[in-house]
Structure formats: structure tokens, C-alpha cells
């Protein structure tokens, strides 16, 4: 699978949650190209084009990162922090998903610059609805941030017009 220009990067450790989320995304016809990583470390490797994903380039980041809070190795907050402090990855939209609405988490999430914060509802229908809404918003409604690549693209487009 081509790892460049993904629709969604899903960071989720729990198999069940992952399956549910994928099901919801696919059912909702939100996105086609979804890639899953199982822990925080892998997520960082992916986004920073190192380790297993050293061949990736920064120019084609995923359009959205769905980030779970509780992750093994490196936890969600840390991942968020790293994403949002590095200029190469700062512009990538990150939506955090969590079971808790603990204020502490909310505060630090937003202060680090997370783009959105949603709670995973217990009710499955609701969950589906939420995922669909979130996906639609970030992938369709929202204008993606400009990267060098897209700039090139835009330029090429123009020339061809």
C-alpha cells in the first residue's frame, strides 16, 4: 500500500476498538485509504519518516491523524506533543479520541495544539455517527494545510490549465 498522502492514520492499540473504528469509517464511506499503527512509537516513526517508515517523505502526510489517548510505549499525549512541536508535522490535523473527559487531559490536549478532541461513546450507533462526522469534516469540509508538495501540485495544475 502506498503510504503517501493517506486519508487517515489511525493510532489505536486495542484490537476491538480498531475493528470498530475501521468498520465505522468504512461503513460511513468516509475514507478509503486508512492505515493503522498499534502504538505511539510506531506512530511517530510513521510521521517522522524514520525506522520502518524511513522511505516515507514529509511532503505527503496523512490528511488526518486519529490518535487514541492510551497507547503502549509512547502514550497519546507524548505523540501529540511531538507532532505539534515539529514544524514538519505541525500542520497535520490531529483528532484525539479517548474514553475519558477528564479535564486534565482536555486541558493538556488543547494546550499542545490538538485540533479536536472527541470522546468514544459507549453506544455504537453514536460512535459510528461521531466517526463519520469527524471524518467527513476533516477530509472533505476542511481545507487541508498547504505543504511544499501540494504547492508543487498546485503549480503544476496551474500550468496545465
Amino acid at each position: 500500500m502506498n503510504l503517501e498522502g493517506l486519508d487517515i492514520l489511525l493510532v489505536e492499540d486495542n484490537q476491538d476498538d480498531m475493528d470498530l473504528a475501521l468498520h465505522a469509517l468504512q461503513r460511513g464511506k468516509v475514507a478509503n485509504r486508512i492505515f493503522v499503527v498499534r502504538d505511539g512509537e510506531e506512530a511517530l516513526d510513521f510521521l517522522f519518516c524514520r525506522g520502518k517508515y524511513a522511505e516515507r517523505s514529509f511532503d505527503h502526510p496523512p490528511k488526518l491523524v486519529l490518535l487514541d489517548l492510551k497507547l503502549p510505549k509512547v502514550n497519546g499525549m507524548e505523540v501529540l506533543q511531538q507532532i505539534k512541536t515539529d514544524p514538519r508535522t505541525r500542520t497535520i490535523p490531529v483528532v484525539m479520541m479517548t474514553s475519558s473527559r477528564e479535564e486534565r487531559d482536555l486541558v493538556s490536549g488543547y494546550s499542545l495544539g490538538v485540533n479536536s478532541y472527541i470522546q468514544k461513546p459507549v453506544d455504537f450507533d453514536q460512535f459510528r455517527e461521531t466517526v463519520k462526522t469527524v471524518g467527513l469534516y476533516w477530509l472533505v469540509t476542511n481545507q487541508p494545510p498547504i505543504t511544499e508538495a501540494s504547492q508543487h501540485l498546485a503549480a503544476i495544475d496551474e500550468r496545465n490549465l
Partner: protein
Amino acid sequence: MDFVKQLFSSDFMPHGFCYLWNPRIVWLNVLPDGLIALSYYCIPLILIYFIRKNRDFPFNRVFWMFGTFILACGTTHVMEIWNVWHGDYLIAGIVKAITAAVSVLTTVMLIPLVPKVISLPERAHLQEMNRKLEWQIAERKRLDAPIDASLRRKVTGGFIVAILLTSFLGYSGWRSAQRAAQDDYRVAHTYEVMESIQRLSRHVIVTETSARAFALSGQESLLVNYQSTRQKVFQDEAELRSLTADNFSQQRHLDVLDPQVRAALDFAESIMTKRQESHAYPGGSDALEIERHLDVVTATSGDMYAEETKLLSQRMQTARAGQLSAKLIAIIGSLLGVGLWVLALFAVNHEIDISARARTQLSTLNSELEQRVQRRTAALQSEILDRRRAQEMTERLAAIVEFSDDAIISKTLDGIITAWNHGAEKIFGYSTSEAIGKPMRMLIPPERAHEETDILARIARGESVEHFETVRIRKDGTLIDISAAVSPIKDGNGTIVGASKIARDISEHKRAEEALKQSFATSDRALKELADQKFALDQHAIVAVTDVQGTITYVNEKFCSISQYSRDELIGQNHRILNSGHHPKEFFQQMYHAIAHGKVWHGEIKNRTKNGSAYWVDTTVVPSMDTGGKPRQYVAIRADITERKVVEETLREQSKILELAQVLVRDMQSRIVLWNLGAEKLYGFTKQEAVGQISHELLQTEFPTPMEEIEEQFQHAGTWTGELIHRKRDGGRIVVSSLWVLHRDGNGEPARILEANTDITGRKDAEQRLSAQAEELAGSRQALEIKTLTLRSVLDSMVEGLVATDEQGKFVLWNPAAERILGMRAANVGSEEWTAHYGLYLPDTVTPFPVEQIPLVRALRGEASMTEMFVRNPEIIDGAWIEVSAAPMFDKEGAISGGVAAFRDITQRRADEREILRLNEDLELRVIERTAQLEVANKELEAFSYSVSHDLRAPLRHIIGFSKMLVEEFGSTLDPGAKHYLDRIQAGTQNMGLLVDELLNLAKVGRHSLNRRTTDLKAIVAEVVAILEPDFQGRRVEWLIADLPSVECDPVLVKQIFQNLLANALKFTRARNPAVIEVCQAEHSDDGQWVFTVRDNGIGFNMKYVDKLFGVFQRLHRPEDFEGTGIGLATVQRIVQKHGGRVWAKGELDKGAVFHFTLGVGETESKTNGATAGGQS
């Protein structure tokens, strides 16, 4: 400056040279240029004049430009002239440039005006304007005619001067030009001469040289050369001679030169001949000779050259000087010219101003004239008005004359009647027509005929004849007495033209006079009689006459003697001076009132003499009335009654005094004969009621001893005193001290009994009271003794010690208990010794108690106080604790009369107190421990429930999710049974989800730290109702939400309380229609906190299970009947407890439930429903 110098540099050749100074051409250029320039300067001036006159001309600006343009052109022509003699082309060029610019500008300005010009008013309009203008001009000419002459003269004069000056300038210019030409010519001439000299010299040298050369070489060419050159020399000589013909000195030089040249030439020829003939070469001496000749020639020509050079420089100087002067003239001339033009301008303007001023003057004069005319008209009008008024006056006078009762007759100086009024008709009997034209004489009886003549004579002189009485004849021949006056009539100039007579019929009048004479005689007689009577009166009585104001006009002798004033002192004074002040104002007012109305008044008056003593007079005042019935004067006739009055007054005084005593007089039968005022007052019976009554019957007298005894005593002694009891009219009982006196009549027989009674009831009562009081006193003394004994026993038996001191601090009371507690008796020591004597210490048991703090001492200062002390003295070795309270004692006036102190032994109490304290501390510690433990337990529990719920959510999510997916994706292939099981699984998990959420919530509440803010409860409730709306849509729910206050509480948590309570209410009233849910704050709890209430009319609950209500997961209903987790109320309780309040409920099955809760806020909170801090979670 360099630039300026540059401007005037004359390096260039002036134009004159182009003309080769041909005078004709020069002047053909100069003159026309001059004229052109002149006219070019004049035209703008005309234009300026034109513009100034035509103020509303639309193209003013263009004309200005045009004028400037023309001026500039003129200046270029001037420069042309200048350039003929001076090559100042730079200036010329600049001027031309300026002209060019101006002309271009003018053209540019002109072009846009073309359409405007085209649109100028039509011919007709222009003709109209023209006509107006012509009229204006004619006017102006008329007005300016005299002015124009002078103006014209001035202008002409000015222009003549200008012309003269310009011509002079031209002439000087021409002259200087000429001179310059001459100078130049001379200079050129000098150059020629110099050249000529040089030529000559050169030729001479050439000849000599050629000669020498020929002499040396013998070449023929040289000879030819010599010959030709020699000819030239001669030519040169001739030329030079002619050139220097005017220079005498040069001629002389020439005279010298010629022979020298001749000599040189001769020698040259000689050597040449020598050569030709003898072929002898010239030797050195020949060469030298040639040289010498050459030198001589050279020298002489050199001289000539030098002279010419000098001449040249001279001439050049002259030329330059000439140039300079010319330039100066030009500049000065131009300046003058400009100045003149400016002057001309000013002059013209000035003239224009004058004419303008003259015009304005005229117009003002005009307006003045107008005004004067107006004024005259007004004056005329008023004159007319006056005349009319005069006419009216005359008519009125005529009427007056006509209708006067008096005869008003006017006659001429001859005595012919000219006017005859109505009055004359009446008096004389003649009508107006009969009378007018007749002579006055017809009215005069023959014997008085002379009167008329006299009168007329006097009138003619201008005298008026005053009223005189005479007799005239009427028409019917009767004689009438008339009173007449005649005055002259004057015309406008003052000439006497007639007389006017006014006559009055006085016949009646005369008759009246006669009658009057008669009556006078009669009254004279009567007066005489009166005078006699008056005299008689005066002898007897005191007589005074006053006028109506009371001013004395006449007093007789007796008056003066009794009042002791002299006649002079009285006459003219007001009667008031005799006023003694005895009578009130009303007395005299009444008198005046009577006499003013013409009534005679009698009375007795007390008057005052001059020295102040008083006298009484019996007075009769008689007013004399005048014919109108009004009093004219008052005649007062008096008789002296002073003595009598004195006696009267004394008697009156006495009887008054008597009246004051309570006296009655009775006859021998005890019948009341006299009852005075005092008796009236005392008994209440009036005189009328008392007189004639039997005294002891009337007064219901009670005698101390039988009446008969008293009577006997009285008869014997003639007086009796004693105390009697009488009854007053109103029934009141009085005790009187009575004095009886027997009064014998003239014969000595007992006639009357005088009884004087004094009311001594009061005194009697007082006596009685005193004796009663004495009894009382005896009784109370006894009682007091008993009380004292009681008090004593109390004091003795008291447990507390009681001591008292007087204000000095000396003990007056010391009960046995005091002795027991303190171990001592009262000591005769001053208060400052008390601490030491009794061993008083502060509660620390070692510090002696400060004396001034001792309560009893403070009490003596007036302060009540209470304190504890420790007592240790020889009698109480171990010491004891006492509690002392003292207060001051005050006497009747409020001053401190002493102090009292009470104290008790509290040793035991203190010991007990300490024990309690110790136990308390123990308890406190234990409580803190326990609380800490509880806190820890709580926290653990909370943490546990939090993490459990939190972590439980994830697997829950999975179960729900996958089961849903299962149903969705494979539901169609499943058995209904399988589907049913799946539904049950889902329901179960959903339930669990709810439980977990609620538990989480509960835990969160526990962890949430209380954040009290002013919260508007009403708003919170409203929010909650809004949130719950979906749950009661379609149902009839009556919300009775009262006015809830704003309180200090955590808005987030309180919202939850209401959410839970109201959700419950909604749930359990589902069966009701309508459901009635009430929220209010009505009651107060015991400790003053506000109690909030939520009431519903739902299914209620059994009070038996009220304790279970708030338990976690405790439910009172089956899940099938009512869903729910059983945590709602537990959460409410948690929150309420956090706030420091409590919650409790009451319910009845099927009758509804009511929940009360407090939030630890009470009366002191403000009840304003103002700004809230928000109730949003």
C-alpha cells in the same frame, strides 16, 4: 553682479554696424520702432482704463494678459532700438523670450473664450445694454462735465509732459548715438593712421633692404622691387599726410620724417648707383649708414606711432565715456518715463475717485432732499390736522356761547349788536334776528345812556370792564337788574374790532339781598339776648366750647380756675390735655358718638388739673348743629362734684373688700338678709337663692354642740366662734370656722347677726390624713423589723459570701458565708490592703490581685464586674478559687453610696472543667484520626470507582459495537431466537453503560472540589427543564417554579441535583395527567438555612423505605416498571453533603413525593436575582 555685468557686456557688434552706420537706415529703423514702442505702451493703458470702467466685463483676465502681451511687445521694440548701438543681445533675447511666453499664454487663454464670446448676449440685448450704457454715460457726462474739464486738462498736461520727456529722451539718444559714431570713426581713423605709419616704415625698410641687397647682389629684381617700393613709400607719405591733416603735431613729425625718408632713400639710391656704376660693394660704413638712416626713420615713425597710440587711447576713452553717458541717459530716461507713467496712472485713478465721490455726494444730497420733502409733507399734514381741530374748537365754543344762561352779546365799536346768544334772548326778550344789527342802546334806560358811551370808550382803549351792576330794559319794557362785564374783541393783528358783553340777570339776586338785610336785623337782636344768657351761665357753671375735633375754642373763668390752666394755655389745645386716664376709651367713644349725632350727653368725668391732681365734674355736652344737621361745635357745661366722688369711691373700695370675705347677715330669726360675693363663692348659692332663707336650713348646718346652747352662749357674749359643718349647693360637705357677731340697732336691741365663715375643710382633712399616716408608720415599722430579721437569716444561711461597703470602702455587711470562704471576718482596712490582707491572687495563683481590679473596688468606682480569683491566706492554706461579682449601690440621687460583692467557691468547678477539657481534647484527636481515615477510605473508594468505570467503558464499547455489527451484517441470516438473545445482550450492555456512566459521575462529584459562586437557581432550573424537554414532549406537565434566589454554591453540581430530582419527578409522574412538578424555596431549617423543595404528584413511595432512598444502587421499584440505576439520589446526597447541607424526603404511596435539601446557605445570603456566574457545566 557678474550676471548683470554680463547682461550689459558690449562684446557683440551692435546692429548699427550692419547698417554700416548709414544714418538713413539707422533712423528708418529706430523711429518706427520708437513709435511702435510708444503706441504699444499706450494701448495697454487704454485697455486698463477700459477694464476699470467696465467692471462686469466677462473677459477681464484675458485683457490683462493681452495688455501684458502688448507691453512686452513694446519692450522688444525698445530693445531693438537699443541694439542698434549696443550689442546687448542677451537682454534682448530675454525680453523676447518673456514676450513669447506671454503671447503664447494669451493665445491659450483666448481659445476657450471663443465659445463664450459667441454666446455673448444678442444684438438686441446688447443694444439695450448699450442704451443703458449711453444713458449712464450721458448722466455721467452731465455729472462729470465740470469735472472732466479739469481732468482733461490734467491728463493733457500729463501727456504733454510725457511726450516732451520721451522726445527729449529720443533726442538725447540720437545725440549720443551720433557722438558714439563720431568717436568710433575717430578711433578707426587713428587705427588707420597707425597702420599707415607702420606701412610707411615697413616700406622704407624694404626699400633700404632691397637697395642694400641690390648693392650686394646686383640682381635686377631687387632693383625693381626697390623702385616699386619706393613708389609705395611716396604714396604712404602722401596718405599719411592727408590722414593726419587735422593733427598739427603729427604734421610736424611728418615734416621731420619726410626729409629723413628722403635722405634714406637718397642714400639707398646712392649705393645702388654706386653699384650700378662702379660695381662697388657697399661697405661696412654704408651698411652702418643705412642702418642709421633706418634708425632715424624708425625712430621718427616710432614717435608718430606712439603719439597715435596715445591719441588712440584718448579717443577710446572718450568713446567709452560717451557710451557710458548714453547708457546712463537711457536708464535714467526710462526710469523717468516709467515714473511718469505711474504718476499718470495714479492721477487718472485719483480723478476717477474724485468723480466717484462727487457722484456719491450727489446721491446723498438727493436722498437728503427726499427726506426733507417727506418731512415737509408730514408737517403739512399735521398742520391740516391742527386746523381741523381748531375749527372743531371754535364750533364747540360757539355752542357754549349759544347755550349759556348768561347773555353773551358782541357788538361793534359803534355799539351795534353783532352776536346774540340764547341767554341774551331769555334775559332781554329779544330774539337773535330782532337783536342783531340793532344798537345796544335799545337795552339801556335813558337815564343810564352814558354808560354805553363810557364802556365803548374804555373798550376802544383796550380795557376790559369788570363786573358792574346796572339796570336794563327788556323788550316788554320791564326793568331788570343785571350784572355785566365787557371785554374787547381783538383780531389777528391785535386791533380792537369790537366788544363782547356778558350780562346776568340779578333781579332775583337783588331781592334776596333785601330779605337778607331784614333777617340780619332780627338775628342781631337775638344774638344780644343770647350774650346776656351766656354771661349768666358763665357766672355759675364751668363752661367750655370745643370744635368738632375737640379743640378748645372758649373757656370761662371757672374752667380755668378748676383746671388750673390759664386761658391761653387752653385755647387751641385739644380737650385731651385734661384726660385723667380714669375712664376707658369706650366711655369717651360713646360720648363722642352721641354728640356727633347731635344728641345731648350727660355724664360724670374725672379730669386732671395742670399739676396732676384729679377732679370730678358732672358734665353736660350740647352739640351745636349747623344748617346741614352736622355738629358745628360742642358746648360743655360742668359742675364740680369732686368731693362727692371721693366719698363714693372710698365706700366702693370698702364694700369690695368686704365682698371678698365670706359673710352673711341674718336677722334674729336666722333669715339671711345679706349674702356677699364671698358667700356665693364658698357655698355656690347666689344672692337671690340665699336671701330670705333660714341660714342653718339652707346650709344644713351641723353644730358641734346643740344649737340652743350656742344661741344662748351667743346671746350672752355677743360673739361666738366655732367649727361648723355646712353643705354647699352641690352637696359638698365643708368644715368652716365661723365667727358670729351680734349687731344692735340704733336702740341697742339685737337687730342683726353678722356671720363670717372660713372654709377649713382642707385643714381638717390634712389633720385626718396625718393621724392615718402616723398609724401607718407604726405598722410599717413593725413590718420592717420583721423583714430585717428575715433578711438576716437569709444572709446567714447563704452559701455565697455577700459583702457590702459604704462609699468609703468600709464594710457594712459581711455574711457568715463570706467568713467561711475567705476564712476571715471583715477587716477594718482600707481597700488598698484587701489584696494583702485576704490573700487575693490572679488565676495564675502567684501574682497578687491588683487592687484596682478587685471587683468591689471597681464597684465603688461605679463599674459592675465579675472575675475569678485565687485566695490563699493563713486561714486557707491550700487556697481556694472564688468567682466574684460586684456592683455599685446607688442612692436616691444616683450617686454611688457603696458597693456590694458576692462570691462563691468554685474550686471544685474548676477541677471539673479541667477534666472536661482534657476529655474533649482526647475526643478531638480521635475525631481527627477517624476523619482522616474516613477521608482516605473515601478517596480510595472514589479512585476505585473512577478507574473501574473508566476502564469498564472500553470493553463495554466493544461488546456493544460488535453485537450491533453482528445484528446489522448477519441479522438477516439469524434466527428470531438468536436475534432475541442478541437484543437481550445489547440491552444488558446498554444498561451497564448507563450504570458505568452514573458511577463515573458519582465518583466525579466526589472528586470535584467545591467551587462556590453566586448562582441564579432559577436559571439553573430553567436550563434543566430545557435539557429534560425531550423526555416530557407530548405530555402535559405543569411546572410550578417559584422565584428562587441566587445563592453561593457550585453551579455545576447544583445543576446535577436539579437534573436528578426533576428527572425523577418526571419519571414517576408519567402516569399522571397533568403531571404537577413544583420547585420552590419556602421554609427555613432549624439553623436558619434555606430549604429548597421539589414536589411531584407522582406515585410516591412508602415512608417505610425512606432510608433506602439515597443508597447507591438502591431502587424501590422494579426495572420493568421504572428504569433507572439507583444512583441519582445518591449523587444528589453526595453533592448536598459537599455543600454542607442535607437532603431528606417525604412521600406517600400514590400521593406523590417531596424532596427537601439545603445547601449550607441561609438568611445572610443576598436574595438578588441579578447577575449569575452561570450554571453551565
